[in-house]
């Protein structure tokens, strides 16, 4: 038997390109439906778990999917903006706890989440190191974010400009890391959490600068009247919030009008939830209320339908591939007629020749299956990360 396997292997090795194509084809027709199923199953679990844990979302009218993906999974696509007034209104209604979410900025590839202290309790996030943010400009990192950026408590992260060449745009803000969270195996692991006011400072809605009443800043004064001081362009604006300059940071206007990407509403009970949802049924309302589980269910239904189409297409391709492989094999038998005759003339048994040919097929199938299994295992291992990156993109 070893002689048969040896000859089969030598033949396949000699015809390595033909073998590679056959093994690759077998691998693909096995892996595509199986790997796709793994991805869909994992994405279903991943998306569902978080959606089930989030009762209601409130945001500006627009795409419910965009609102859900941004608020729950911190996707890059920013939904229509609502205002902080909406969060205040929900909280003041007494129907639900309102957690403001402002998911718009990034530090390299990690999303910066402007939220309130309640978010950590709501998601059950606990500290692995340090403390929760207490001051403007302080940040707490998810476990993966800290690992990816290679930072920890005592270090700092800098927000990325929205557009690299927009001089009039948002300047980077340096934020001090005061805590790192335990892994939760959710999107929170990738995030950088700051107070929502810090997020507004990143946007430039709040800022800190030299005190113009201070004689040291006199060169920055363009015009001074009894009740107003106009600064010129030389005024130093702070891009880091420190104990020394925190007092200079301030917001202009009413905070109620400041932007949010969404609000997580946690109703006090079922009745409160229904009442809250009823408030947004008015077609004239500027905001919408969505149940994430419904949105995700709809998304998964769409994914499932696409998966079925893909599996059907793969099945057709698989049949064509197998037919082609069989044809290649039969044609190669004709080409190998002389070799087979020679083996027979020398004294090789019929069984040996048949076994050798069968061994070639089995080796190709086994290699294809092993590679497909390897790819499936990789998909299983890294599927969540892939889904995460796809959703975030």
């Amino acid at each position, binding site marked *: 038997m070893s*002689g048969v396997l040896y000859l089969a292997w030598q033949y396949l090795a000699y015809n390595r390109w033909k073998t590679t194509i056959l093994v690759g084809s077998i691998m693909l027709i096995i892996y595509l439906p199986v790997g796709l199923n793994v991805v869909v199953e994992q994405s279903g679990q991943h998306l569902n778990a978080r959606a089930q844990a989030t009762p209601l979302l409130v945001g500006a009218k627009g795409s419910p999917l965009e609102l859900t993906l941004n608020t729950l999974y911190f996707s890059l696509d920013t939904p229509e903006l609502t205002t902080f007034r909406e969060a205040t209104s929900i909280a003041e209604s007494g129907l639900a706890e309102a957690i403001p979410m402002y998911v718009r900025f990034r530090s390299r590839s990690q999303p910066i989440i402007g939220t309130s202290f309640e978010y950590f309790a709501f998601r059950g996030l606990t500290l692995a190191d340090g403390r929760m943010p207490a001051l403007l400009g302080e940040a707490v990192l998810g476990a993966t974010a800290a690992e990816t950026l290679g930072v920890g408590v005592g270090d700092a992260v800098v927000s990325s400009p929205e557009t690299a060449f927009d001089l009039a745009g948002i300047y980077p803000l340096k934020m001090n890391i005061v805590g790192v969270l335990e892994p939760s195996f959710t999107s929170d692991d990738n995030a950088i959490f700051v107070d929502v006011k810090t997020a507004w400072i990143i946007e430039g809605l709040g800022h800190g600068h030299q005190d113009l009443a201070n004689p040291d800043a006199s060169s920055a004064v363009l015009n001074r009247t009894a009740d107003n001081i106009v600064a010129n362009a030389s005024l130093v604006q702070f891009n880091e919030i420190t104990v020394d300059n925190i007092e200079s940071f301030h917001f202009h206007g009413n905070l109620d009008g400041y932007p949010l990407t969404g609000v997580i509403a946690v109703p006090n009970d079922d009745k409160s939830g229904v009442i809250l949802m009823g408030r947004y049924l008015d077609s004239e309302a500027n905001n919408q209320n969505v149940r994430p589980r419904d949105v995700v269910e709809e998304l998964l239904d769409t994914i499932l339908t696409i998966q079925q189409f893909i599996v059907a297409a793969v099945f057709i391709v698989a049949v064509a591939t197998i037919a082609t492989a069989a044809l290649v094999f039969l044609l190669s038998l004709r080409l190998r007629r002389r070799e087979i005759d020679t083996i027979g003339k020398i004294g090789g048994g019929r069984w040996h020749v048949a076994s050798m040919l069968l061994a070639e097929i089995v080796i190709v199938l086994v290699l294809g299956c092993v590679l497909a299994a390897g790819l499936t295992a990789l998909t299983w291992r890294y599927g969540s990360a892939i889904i995460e990156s796809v959703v975030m993109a």
Partner: protein
Amino acid sequence: MIEIRNMLFQYGEGDFRLDVPSLQVASGERVAVVGPSGSGKTTLLNLVAGIARPQSGDVVTVGQKLADLDDGATRNFRIRNIGLVFQEFELLEYLDVLDNVLLPYRINNSLELDSQVRQRAAELLKSVGIGHLRDRLPDHLSQGERQRVAVCRALLVKPPLLLADEPTGNLDPANKGRVLDILVDYAAANDATLVTVTHDSNLLSRFERVIDFSDFLGRAG
């Protein structure tokens, strides 16, 4: 060593008929088979080797009446007792020189491949001057080198009977002599029987007897 009695062979319903009333080749004899193309020389070798079976008559090879053996037993008998050399070498392109020589041991369970066999194969290759080519594929060999590999494959099991079908037909004069020397020397050293089909009249002096297949033409259709 070879005894044929009243043998009749015909390919299907075709015109070709090989009718050999009697033919004997003694043990250790070196015989050349000559004759015009299509006279049945190759068919005779196939019948003696048990590759083809006659419609009637007896073929006894190395003391074995081939009609008494079924297909599997014939193959086992052939691989242990008959060394076959072909005009077109018939090497497997995907095996290197050493593996081509070892081929009989990989295609039949009645032979066991061990280190002694490997050593013998290597020595055979050295003895015919191609020991240094053992790792090469047949594509990278000259015609003469290929035929020497094919001869080593035939000699590896130390067969008492060598059947060579125009072994020098595709070789230049220098290689013709060399390949024939190897076959004749082996036969002489091992008291083996050598039956060679050839068209080359210059080589006939190396054989003890010449069977002219023109003698059978009257009976061949």
